[in-house]
């Protein structure tokens, strides 16, 4: 993992001291809310329905056990005992007191965590594959590049006042597990025919009011030119992105307005005009190698014999076998696996994790996963490197902490944003919808197979509903909650936006509606198909019809 150097530590300490003084002045009445708002937001502190909310950035979703313990302590000491992991691979604390925030930030700074750039028109947390560094289908570990881009982007003077927020995702495997196409800028790591490492660069993805998938601006940028090239992209956006209309300010609207051809031309012209600057921003091999050393794989044990042991344990215990099948993923290293810890126990709020659960996961990470934890954009956690011979013990211990629900990728593994139960921008609730659906569908989720249900409590789409196989958007209609349902979205390599199946439905109609959509899918699907495949083949009509006939 990347370790802060002296500069990082000093910067963060100064930042906390500054913030402490700002809070003092706010509480003393020397700063008005108008003056203070942007200062607190710059440190990740929002004001929500019931309290302040603190959003802590988890760079590319990688946490050390010490950091997770730090977060557990915030939950225990300064919140109501839990935190909420988000689709941005971040964590939010919902019950924060302003007067305690300087102490919280000081506590987090000690474990290299902060809330800087989790709001405002800046670069947000850079996200990536939660199986980075361990997945068998990966070309290289993307995290060194995430960290290089993070350092470049952090408080970048030229790009501190972008027209709007800016989200970057990096994926380095065949499968896109970072939902790259819904990001403002996306990087797909590639190896050229000549063996050279570089990136396909995409721009203009985003959900919200106007969902648009990213398009490729350049197929291959050699890694040496990475920072220079994305600087050119950002310059075009910084210059032409709209600042007059909040709803049109994201880069996706610019790309839509220009068209990808023109956008490409603008970026290439800008890039050509950079001249010497390109050299100044060049990424020498030595710099990459030095960063890669920070992410060197741990010293794995020789675990070649573990497979047989695991097979035996699984054969004698069906529940364990089911968990292995659903919640573990292959690992590059023989005899190892990555374990997905479900934060979706059926019927509980999605993505919530209590302080004691965080401590349990941190302890297990120390014991069994080289002290490493990942946060997924599906609001689950990952222990990336577990020996197969340790899986049975791990399963038992996770189970004792209500952390072993075997539902990863299934119908009850629902993404839901905080919605109207917490969020000041919400138009409807999302968590209770997710809970009811999970309870309702859990019994037949094995028969349904992989299914992604995603729920947002307003048009901002933090729950990524547009790219859910089944997406649910909470709206308000005449003072009541109503829900617009889409089908056929997906966020992988073949990302697609879902199609709206008809008029919005009332909260009590959601379960029946989703049932009918799933029934239609099960009727329509062919062998080996998943929901997006079936949708691509048959289109929206049969799903609409299934609802129409039922009405």
């Amino acid at each position: 993992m990347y370790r802060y150097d002296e500069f990082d530590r000093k910067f963060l300490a100064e930042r906390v001291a500054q913030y402490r003084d700002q809070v003092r002045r706010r509480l003393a009445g020397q700063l008005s809310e108008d003056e203070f708002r942007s200062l607190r937001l710059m440190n990740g502190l929002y004001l929500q329905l019931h309290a302040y909310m603190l959003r802590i950035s988890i760079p590319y979703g990688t946490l050390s056990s010490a950091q997770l313990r730090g977060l557990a302590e915030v939950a225990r000491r300064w919140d109501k005992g839990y935190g909420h992991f988000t689709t941005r691979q971040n964590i939010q604390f919902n019950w924060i007191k302003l007067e305690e925030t300087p102490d919280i930030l000081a506590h987090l700074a000690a474990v290299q965590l902060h809330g800087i750039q989790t709001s405002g028109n800046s670069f947000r947390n850079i996200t990536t594959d939660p199986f980075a560094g361990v997945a068998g289908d990966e070309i290289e570990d993307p995290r060194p590049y995430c960290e290089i881009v993070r350092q470049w982007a952090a408080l970048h003077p030229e790009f501190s006042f972008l027209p709007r927020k800016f989200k970057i995702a990096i994926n380095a495997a065949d499968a896109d597990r970072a939902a790259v196409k819904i990001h403002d800028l996306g990087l797909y790591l590639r190896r050229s025919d000549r063996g050279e490492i570089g990136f396909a660069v995409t721009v203009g993805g985003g959900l919200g009011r106007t969902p648009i998938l990213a398009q490729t601006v350049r197929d291959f940028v050699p890694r040496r030119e990475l920072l220079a090239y994305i600087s050119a992209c950002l310059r075009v956006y910084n210059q032409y992105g709209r600042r007059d209309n909040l709803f049109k300010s994201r880069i996706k609207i610019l790309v839509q307005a220009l068209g990808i051809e023109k956008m490409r031309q603008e970026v290439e012209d800008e890039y050509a005009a950079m001249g010497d600057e390109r050299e100044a921003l060049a990424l020498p091999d030595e710099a990459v190698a030095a960063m890669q050393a920070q992410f060197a794989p741990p010293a794995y044990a020789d675990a070649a014999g573990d497979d047989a042991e695991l097979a035996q344990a699984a054969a004698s215990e069906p529940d364990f076998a089911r968990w292995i099948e659903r919640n573990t993923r292959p690992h590059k290293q023989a005899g190892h696996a990555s374990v997905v810890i479900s934060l979706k126990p059926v019927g509980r709020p999605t993505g919530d994790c209590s302080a004691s659960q965080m401590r349990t996961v941190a302890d297990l990470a120390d014991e069994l996963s080289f002290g490493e934890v990942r946060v997924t954009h599906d609001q689950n956690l990952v222990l990336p490197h577990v020996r197969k011979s340790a899986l049975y013990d791990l399963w038992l211990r996770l189970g004792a902490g209500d952390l072993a629900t075997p539902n990863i990728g299934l119908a009850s593994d629902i993404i839901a944003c905080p919605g109207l139960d917490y969020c000041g921008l919400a138009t409807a609730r999302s968590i209770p919808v997710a809970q009811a659906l999970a309870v309702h569908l859990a019994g037949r989720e094995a028969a349904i197979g992989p299914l992604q249900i995603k729920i947002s409590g307003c048009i901002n789409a933090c729950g990524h509903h547009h790219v859910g196989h089944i997406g649910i958007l909470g709206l308000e209609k005449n003072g009541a909650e109503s829900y617009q349902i889409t089908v056929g979205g997906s966020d992988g390599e073949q990302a697609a936006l879902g199609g709206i199946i008809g008029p919005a439905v009332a909260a009590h109609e959601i379960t029946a509606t989703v049932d009918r959509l799933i029934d239609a899918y099960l009727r329509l699907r062919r062998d080996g198909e998943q929901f997006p495949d079936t949708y691509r083949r048959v289109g929206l009509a049969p799903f609409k019809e299934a609802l129409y006939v039922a009405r």
Partner: protein
Amino acid sequence: MDDPTFKLVTGNRLRDGAVVYFASAGIWTPRIDDARLVEEKDGAALLAEAQAGPPPHPAVGPALIDAVRDGDRVVPATLREKIRASGPTVAYRAA
């Protein structure tokens, strides 16, 4: 006929963000039942009164909302304000 709708002022307490309601000069209460209610036409005056006083103002973002009386209880008109008044509708995790 519908119950008459009243106006009241709510905000979030500066020091901890808790939901509070304006009761009387300088006094904000966490209990909506103790909020001061006025008729529609007196709303603007109530908001002005709630916003008066030297800094720091005890409540952030004071705003007028609609509510009705139900016996001794005060019930806000919108779901959002109902959730603000009584907390999330979902159980959350204990430590």
